[in-house]
């Protein structure tokens, strides 16, 4: 799968929490993911939704998605048509949630990616190409369990298909 778009970064790189991704002010009352998406990243970067374009990447530092278990966080990113989140590392609940709902996460060094850089991400070869800076960045390979869930189309589809969990232990 080849994804292309521009890098979107924030004033804060590390520890971007789920409250910033989608505030409790919205997630407790809004069920429509398209409506939730219009508030994505609002508390960290008001106007982010208006600024981003379909296919863009969110690019961050360490521990992206720390904090609460809200699945609305990866959901809001996905419905804002962000093609993937690229970060140095992810918090664990967010990590599972994203794969469960089919939002790709890319773990790699993000120091050489700047706001607005043109990127392409090849999930099959595991390479992020920064076309603006003309360099390739290697992606940390996905664990087999995540590949299985991705291949099945997320956790709902996995359970539906196998009538339970069918993971290599």
């Amino acid at each position: 799968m080849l994804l292309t778009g521009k890098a979107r970064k924030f004033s804060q790189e590390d520890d971007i929490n789920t409250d910033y991704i989608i505030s409790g002010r919205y997630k407790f009352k809004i069920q429509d993911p398209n409506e939730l998406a219009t508030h994505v990243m609002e508390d960290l970067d008001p106007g982010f939704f208006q600024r981003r374009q379909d296919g863009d990447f969110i690019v961050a530092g360490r521990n992206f998605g720390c904090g609460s278990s809200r699945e609305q966080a990866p959901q809001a990113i996905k419905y804002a048509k962000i093609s993937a989140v690229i970060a140095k590392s992810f918090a664990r609940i967010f990590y599972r949630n994203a794969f469960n709902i089919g939002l790709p996460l890319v773990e790699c060094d993000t120091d050489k990616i700047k706001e607005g850089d043109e990127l392409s991400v090849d999930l099959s070869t595991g390479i992020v190409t920064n076309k603006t800076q003309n360099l390739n960045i290697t992606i940390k390979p996905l664990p087999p369990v995540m590949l299985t869930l991705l291949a099945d189309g997320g956790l709902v589809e996995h359970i539906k298909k196998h009538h339970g969990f069918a993971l290599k232990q």
Partner: protein
Amino acid sequence: MGQTIIEKIFSRHTGKTVYANDLVVSKIDFCLGQDGTSGIVIDSFNKMGAEKVFDHKKMAVIIDHSSPSPNEGVSRIHKKIRDFSLGQKIHFYDVGQGVCHQIVPERGYVVPGDLVVGADSHTCTYGALNAAATGMGSTDVAACAATGHNWFKIPESIKFICQGKLPLGVYSKDLILYLIGQVGAAGATYMSCEYAGPAIDALSVEARFTIANMAIEMGAKFGIMNCDRKTLDWVKQHSSRKFKPVAADSDAVYNKVLEFNVSQLAPQIAKPHRVDNVCSVTEAAGIPIAQGYIGTCTNGRLEDFSAACKILKGKKIKKGVRLIVAPASNWILKDAMKKGYISILLDAGATLVTPGCGPCVGTHNGVPADGENVISTANRNFKGRMGNINAFIYLGSPATVAASVITGKITDPRKYLK
């Protein structure tokens, strides 16, 4: 090879000897959701084609985050959750019963050795009862509800050995804030935190919940403690279920063993907008505050109100400052009434709100104004957490909050406890 507490719990659940980094599909003993997450649990459950919860006695849904409903959007979600829960005949706690992380242990649904999954990140609270409990997202909990199982990567463990004895005016909240400050917000990502040592042993079970609760603020998957006499007494008082406690082997392998002596620890404050931005109360003293909050799954228990009342008894909150109080459950509210704590708090000028999460998650019950500082006993101080991105949240113990609302600025509680 010796095993950690977590490795043993997973070995018991899967019927094979497993170690850190093994991947397992394991049965679970209990799962839960709250009103901020259960809407999607239900959607995913239905999309999976599931019809019945795997065991209606092993799931609870608690309406606590925005309770009672502050607007029609929340009401719609509450109705959806209520209809599902009643239809499935699972344990259901409607508005005003309390915070999920008080209800689940207090009503006896969790015992030592259990594996519990909750659609709330602070599910790790029950580690204080020697149980493996962790937060996951809604679809993962839907999978638990549908199948009674989920997949886990068994985490490595960090052992925190807390030596010494907490001094007067210093509480389990101060201890966990200190530990988080030491290791950082990602310091235990994917790990199980084992808390041990004489300073932990000396704490009541209520005080231990505060410490287990905040394991997630270091990124941890579990925060777990040994089962001792106090745990046994507490669990037997609250549950009729049979159980077998779990202890780590002496040759268990840890990712890290960190040792601290807490005998000289001062009350701690987490400054905006990060939980690991921790300093001593003496360093933060004097910062003006507009609102105090005592409550939440971290510090809304009887002992917390007792600590606050020791300071507030016969005193008044400074004019122009608010103190919001939310007991963690209606049982705690009743006990606090019997003990006279509620009268002390009301006489001091506090505002009592519904048992539940209160203003912690920013939907109601005390949203701060632009530029205001809040001192709160909650577990998170992220920007916007209490509903206003232009407010500033400081975290501390119930005693520190009580002392601070008297003076209108962050205040060392020890000066009221001599």
